[in-house]
């Protein structure tokens, strides 16, 4: 076979084959682990916060190709964002940055959003002062 056919587009495939930010963060400031009841995928995102910004992010994912690619892309996207910015992060950003996902796989990007928010929540819980600042956004409580 000369041509290569792929289930996902080339960006998704690239992130699946060579995921960015794969692993755990030693001394993470926040860790979120979430699961998709629908399909059984599990995603864990660790973040390092410095001066109110996400300095570093890592993921580990038990899930399909698009779940791995989504977590890779999500961790890429959020690096450098403030906590507030990160709090309003949406899965659509992941989908767009990946150049689209099959409809049945959109939930993978949602899982990435949830994992990130869980990590932020964890950070906020550990750092009540940050919590006070972030309390203006509803998404934390949600």
């Amino acid at each position, binding site marked *: 076979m000369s041509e290569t056919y792929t289930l996902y587009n080339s960006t998704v495939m690239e992130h*699946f084959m060579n995921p960015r930010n794969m692993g755990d963060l030693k001394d993470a400031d926040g860790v979120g*682990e979430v*699961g998709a009841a629908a399909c059984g995928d*599990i995603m*864990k995102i660790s973040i390092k916060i410095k001066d109110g910004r996400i300095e570093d992010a890592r993921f*580990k*994912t038990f899930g399909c190709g698009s779940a791995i690619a989504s977590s890779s892309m999500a961790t890429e996207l959020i690096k450098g964002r403030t906590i507030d910015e990160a709090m309003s992060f949406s899965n659509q950003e992941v989908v767009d940055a990946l150049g689209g996902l099959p409809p049945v796989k959109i939930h993978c990007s949602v899982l990435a959003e949830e994992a990130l928010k869980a990590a932020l929540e964890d950070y906020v819980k550990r750092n009540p002062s940050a919590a006070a600042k972030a309390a203006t956004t509803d998404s934390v409580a949600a």
Partner: protein
Amino acid sequence: MRQVFLDHQSSTPVLPEVFDAMRPYFTEYFGNASSLHQHGLRVRDALKRARQQMAALIGAESEEEIYFTSDGTESSNLAIKGAAYANERKGKHLVISATEHPSVMNSLEFLEKQGWTCTRVGVTPQGMIRLDELEAAITPQTVLVAVHHVNHDIGTIQPMREVGQICATKNVPLYVDCEASAGWLPIDVKEWGAAMVSFSPHRFYGPKGVGVLYRNRKARIVSVIHGGVQEGGRRAGTENIPAIVGGGVAAEIAQERLSQRVTHVAPLQKRLWEGLKLNVPYIQLNGPEPGPDRVATNLNLSTEFIEGEGQLLLCDMNGIAVASGSSCVSKSLKISHVLGAIGLDHALAQGNIIMTLGEANTEADIDYVVETFAKIASKLRGMSPMWDEFEHGVIDSVIAPTGRGKSFSQHAAEVSGKPAH
């Protein structure tokens, strides 16, 4: 890169002999079998020959018991609904095994909406139908029992003679879906006393576009695709002559080469499973061990702590074509119901990979697959939070429990808020 096709359960390439036989029926002998002139009569002859070849493969008495449909799915639909509608007056109850193919399961669900009832007979952890439950399930209202010969996912060979005896004793017609066995195991419809048997040549080096339904003269069915009076009035629509001709030749070849093919794949099946067991920790074979209870083409594996689609995609990127019954590869986001029916732990169902062998596979292929698969498993485990958590004693292995940590399923339910399905 080496290319290894290990998904023969999904489809097989058409043999050159089969293709050559089909060829003239596209351009030269293009007639419609309903026509009364040369062009029609010629293809009628060809149809008859193909029916004889199909009948021979399964030990049917006469080619008149062979009906052509478009695929295995349609054959299942015709067997199930055709028998249900034809025997409505006797009763509206059907009995099937819990691991039938979706073409059987969903035909039944459709009938259930129309007022039929159905009993799904459980299977052992190896996927073997529980004969006592089967016997108990049959009532005077039962118009059909459906038990497949070999399971498409886990390769379990069902005890068809015993199933046939129960049906004979209870005087209920038996339909046997042989899609996953035809061409790979001997089939004798008379030995089983089967009322109906279905299969499709594209699983044994024949073309797509044709399904076969054997119907014993005594079994009553009505048609489900209505229109003209093709196929003895039991399947309307212009017959797909080239595919039927090719399917017939494939059946003839399958019969001739059956033992040769099995002799080729059975050692490869063992080599593959032994190799994986040795080189991939925390891997499990689902269904019976290679041997008399398992079709020689199939391995159904669970690689713990990682999910199936990733394994499948990485195999593909390394030239290895496999399938998976995990929820991520299904369009419905559900694991194969077969894995559910054998009671497989959800964690293992998620890591499911199905490898099915064929006559072109070699020992070198197998060794390449073992080596490559070991790398893939460790790459994906490196990315998996579950592997991590297992190593840290947070969760335990199902395959080789250490006694430390909670179960994967419990953990998954906790992080997702709901139990997975």
